């Protein structure tokens, strides 16, 4: 299935892209993250830090086990610092 992946703040900056569409067999958030880490380079560097990596599926905060759906929007970002 196709997943629209978004990156924000330090994650976006480290990867050098804000978004990409990925064709994947991954069932959940963690499987997709592993798939991206397997690409190596900055992906492995940035997406391995699970302790400080937050995820949102279709604009709602989600966990590693949240299931992906066809055409969904998945975002990776660091802890928020607004206000």
């Amino acid at each position: 299935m196709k997943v629209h992946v978004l990156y924000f703040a330090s994650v976006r900056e480290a990867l050098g892209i804000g978004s990409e569409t990925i064709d994947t067999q991954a069932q959940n958030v963690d499987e997709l993250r592993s798939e991206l880490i397997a690409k190596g380079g900055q992906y492995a560097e940035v997406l391995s830090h699970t302790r400080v990596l937050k995820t949102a599926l279709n604009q709602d905060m989600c966990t590693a086990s949240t299931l992906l759906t066809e055409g969904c929007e998945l975002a990776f970002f660091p802890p928020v610092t607004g206000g």
Partner: protein
Amino acid sequence: MSFTVSIQVEDFDLSKEIALLRADDSSVGAVCSFVGTVRERDESVQTPEGNISSLELEHYPGMTERSIQQFMQSARERFNINAARVVHRIGLLLPKDQIVLVAVTSAHRGESFRACEYLMDYLKTQAPFWKKEQTALGARWVDARVSDEQAMARWV
């Protein structure tokens, strides 16, 4: 009875925002507001070179507005409040600039005081905004604060 949020580059006017918020509601007896501004220096920074020359605010368009609306709804269910307004600026900001406004109205002060703090604690810990500081030593992404997480935990 309005609960609205604006994410904007432009500055805001506290007096105008409050006037609008309570314009058509004669049952309001209390207005509580909070304005966050850009500090020139972080407490951990000892030298002038570490002073902030500017701040860049990034957000997640769509999710930001949606999640703040959801949290305003939860504030509405939790406290006896009449209306609330959140304005959060994005883009390039300078020291002393206003960043964020939370304003709440209610019949009596206790509810708007609490709701205002609740919404601010939420904005600090859950809303998808990220700050990047520019200093003479270079640029750096601001780290999340444990004290903000602890403040939010009071409400759970």
